């Protein structure tokens, strides 16, 4: 009897302890971010310390240490012993204690969020992939320091970049007027027009066709591909048009739909008209585009697997043994669907075609422009924010960008000779050496575009050499540059909704709920219309109503408000 009683008290005692522990656990959990924001930092009060140099190098006279968050990508051997890390330390006198994550976006985001939420974040984020939402949230909590003053005082290269690239400063300034994080600028010209369509030119020649200009031409070309045995093996194994929803703009819809209406799936299907935001996916042009795609699909001109297969399956079709079987494939570059190793030859048969002109004279191409997420931020744990911003500023200089991206002069690159041409076909400044490591090997010479840097289109297109033989692998950049310049530029809409737009936390939360619903609905409906599961004539009105029900109007209003707010300030 007695032992049972003690047993019961025992149980209740343990339970009480547990509940107490649980409660403590909960409160301390919710206190973490708040606690970290109040932790003293002495921001700017130290004035950089006695041995800080406002200009010139080293940045600090006596060596200081900074913990830095960064991903280590699969082709860097070790950031601690990396040549550029050592060079940077020698130059600036700042020793970086790397806090590494694997160089894969999902892993990086997970770790970053954990560090920020637990209060165990480093002195700087060298490459934090910080979203606009995170910048605003942790900036206003005080975790990320506002950088405006620091940039103004100590960062001439970053200031110059603001002047040279008109949209840069606007894109990274939060609604409260502060800059909390600095991006890695990489103005990749051909990437901005990456919804390209690659067509098998050999087949065109064989069939006596010229590159299609209108949607009708395109239709006839696909029909000829399918029926006239262009690969000459006597079998009807040709796939006129294929694609994949997972690759870099390998989706079939984007290229074709833009002959009917401006369609940019990466920017929420937004289109602008006189400062007013709207969506492409309820326009009459969109309906016509669906009808055209449906016609192609019904006649078997689009690969049945084009809307479902993964990139691997697409490249198997593109790499078919013996003869080519794929006629037209949309892709950011041909490596998405065919072998791009130096010895490969199949890709030489494929050339991009210009955006098609639809029956109503519409001929757009989606324009993918933006700064994206920022990489570099200084936290309130940093005792030397001035030194940190000067470090980022050095990485924004021509020298810093070149060394961090290409490695050591002499070993990894040499000054260009007079005959060396760049992507634009003019004289280049330096030539990247054929590297000894190559495919399958890892390097330890440079950061491989990790961290902040300034690669403006000017830098990318003029600084380093590129072969003028566009069908060689060294001439790849030239090939894509030329195609973009000659075929795609000018087809972007005159008025565009900016991709870099700050939302308030409340707006961001709403978007987080609405966006997946809307995107799923649009994608699903498009497939149903194209594949014929829904009739475009009969079910169109129901589709438009469904679009409203999924919150499209509210979604547009949120972005319209954010846009108006951004423009009012300027």
């Amino acid at each position: 009897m007695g032992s049972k009683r003690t047993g019961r008290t025992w149980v209740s005692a343990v339970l009480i302890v547990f509940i107490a522990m649980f409660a403590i656990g909960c409160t301390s959990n919710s206190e973490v971010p708040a606690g970290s924001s109040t932790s003293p930092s002495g921001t700017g009060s130290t004035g950089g310390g006695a041995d800080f140099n406002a200009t010139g190098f080293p940045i600090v006279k006596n060596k200081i240490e900074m913990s830095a968050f960064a991903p280590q990508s699969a082709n860097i051997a070790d950031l601690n012993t990396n040549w550029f890390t050592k060079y940077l330390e020698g130059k600036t006198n700042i020793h970086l204690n790397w806090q590494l994550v694997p160089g894969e976006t999902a892993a990086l985001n997970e770790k970053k969020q954990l560090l920020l939420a637990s209060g165990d974040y480093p002195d700087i984020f060298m490459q934090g992939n910080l979203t606009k939402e995170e910048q605003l949230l942790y900036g206003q909590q005080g975790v990320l320091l506002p950088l405006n003053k620091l940039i103004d005082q100590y960062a001439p290269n970053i200031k110059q970049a603001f002047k040279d690239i008109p949209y840069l400063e606007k894109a990274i300034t939060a609604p409260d007027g502060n800059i909390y994080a600095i991006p890695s600028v990489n103005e990749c010209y051909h990437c901005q027009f990456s919804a390209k369509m690659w067509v098998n030119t050999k087949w065109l020649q064989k069939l006596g066709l010229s590159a299609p200009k209108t949607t009708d031409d395109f239709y006839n070309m696909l029909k000829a591909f399918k029926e006239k045995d262009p690969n000459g093996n006597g079998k009807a194994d040709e796939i006129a048009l294929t694609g994949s929803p997972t690759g870099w703009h390998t989706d079939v819809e984007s290229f074709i739909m833009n002959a009917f209406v401006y369609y940019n799936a990466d920017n929420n299907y937004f289109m602008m008209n006189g400062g007013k935001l709207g969506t492409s996916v309820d326009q009459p042009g969109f309906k016509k585009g669906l009808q055209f795609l449906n016609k192609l699909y019904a006649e078997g001109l689009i690969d049945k697997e084009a809307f479902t297969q993964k990139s691997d399956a697409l490249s198997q079709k593109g790499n078919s043994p013996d003869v080519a079987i794929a006629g037209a494939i949309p892709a950011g570059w041909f490596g998405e669907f065919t072998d791009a190793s130096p010895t490969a030859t199949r890709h030489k048969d494929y050339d991009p075609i210009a955006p098609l002109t639809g029956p109503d004279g519409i001929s757009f191409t989606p324009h993918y422009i933006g700064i994206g997420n920022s990489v570099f931020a200084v936290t309130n744990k940093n005792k030397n924010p001035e030194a940190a911003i000067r470090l980022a500023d050095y990485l924004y200089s021509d020298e810093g960008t070149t060394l961090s991206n290409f490695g050591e002069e002499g070993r990894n690159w040499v000054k260009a000779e007079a005959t060396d041409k760049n992507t634009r076909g003019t004289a280049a400044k330096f030539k990247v050496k054929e590297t000894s490591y190559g495919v399958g090997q890892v390097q330890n010479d440079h950061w491989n575009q990790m961290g902040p840097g300034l690669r403006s289109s000017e830098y990318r297109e003029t600084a380093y050499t590129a072969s003028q033989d566009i069908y060689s692998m060294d001439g790849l950049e030239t090939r894509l540059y030329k195609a973009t310049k000659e075929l795609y530029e000018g087809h972007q809409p005159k008025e565009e909704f900016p991709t870099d737009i700050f939302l308030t936390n409340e707006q961001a939360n709403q978007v987080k709920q609405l966006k997946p619903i809307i995107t799923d609905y649009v994608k699903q409906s498009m497939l149903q219309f194209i594949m014929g599961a829904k009739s475009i004539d009969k079910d169109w009105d129901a589709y438009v109503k469904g679009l409203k029900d999924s919150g499209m109007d509210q979604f547009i209003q949120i972005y319209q408000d954010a846009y108006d707010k951004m423009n009012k300030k300027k």
Partner: protein
Amino acid sequence: MIHPEQSLSLEVRKRPSRIHENIVDRLYLCGVYLFLTVCLIIVAYPLIYIVSSSFSSSSAVISGKVWLLPVEPTLRGYKAVFQNPQIVTGYSNSLFYLFFGTLLSVILTITAAYPLSRKSFYGRNVITALFIFTMLFNGGLIPYYLTVKGMGMLDTRWAMIIPGAISVWQVILARTFFQTSIPSELTEAAHLDGCSDFKFLLRIVIPLSKPIIAVLVLMYAIGYWNSYFEALIFLKSAKLYPLQLILRNILILNSIDPTMVKDVKELADRQGLKELLKYSLIIVASAPVLILYPFVQQHFVKGLLIGSLKG
């Protein structure tokens, strides 16, 4: 000594041959074999495909020429795997975590499960309840991280072994096994002969519990070999990374972010790296578990069944 169960199962196996099989039985048997063959092909084909691909040139693999046997045989993939310093360190780290982690886990699990299986152990129900409580509730990621940080284990090898050293599920499995296969009369008899509890555990319980130990070893070993999340959260130095982190890093090509394209040639290089390493890396990374399995497999089914059926 002959295990009574073993001789019994031998007899069971002999029995069908003595009975006359009629046509229906034979047809049925044929059907079963046919079905099993189909199953075998379905299961074995992907494995064979991966092995063949790992020995083929990457251009043959991406053009789909490989379907059963290696095409243009080469060892380049394996050479690249073993030349990659990250993979080599990751591999040795993973083996380290696997060996010491499993050792520690099995010791802890047995020492926790055995007392809990003894009816004479005071308060065992409460303690079991507390164990189970942790199965249902946990503090969440951030408190977990802060606890490990507070114990000074961040960025050390301990972080890979200590926090997940005991799995309550395995403790319950082992406890049930001990309860059903080690009768308390045995304990009493041993005590009468002057055997201490520890000696009893070492000399009698463990030798009698090979099946359950095999199960524990295999399950913990696979767990440690596959552990990815602990490494991601707790480690900051690349030299401590287990193989799984590096595998993911190489095999899952980042979805392409146009703002991050340095030059397209680099994309080609990355794709080449992936194609070259993919299959050989899969083979190399699954080898330890594949090697371990046959050795413990004979005990495996028995150990699992006892744990689950009589639990």
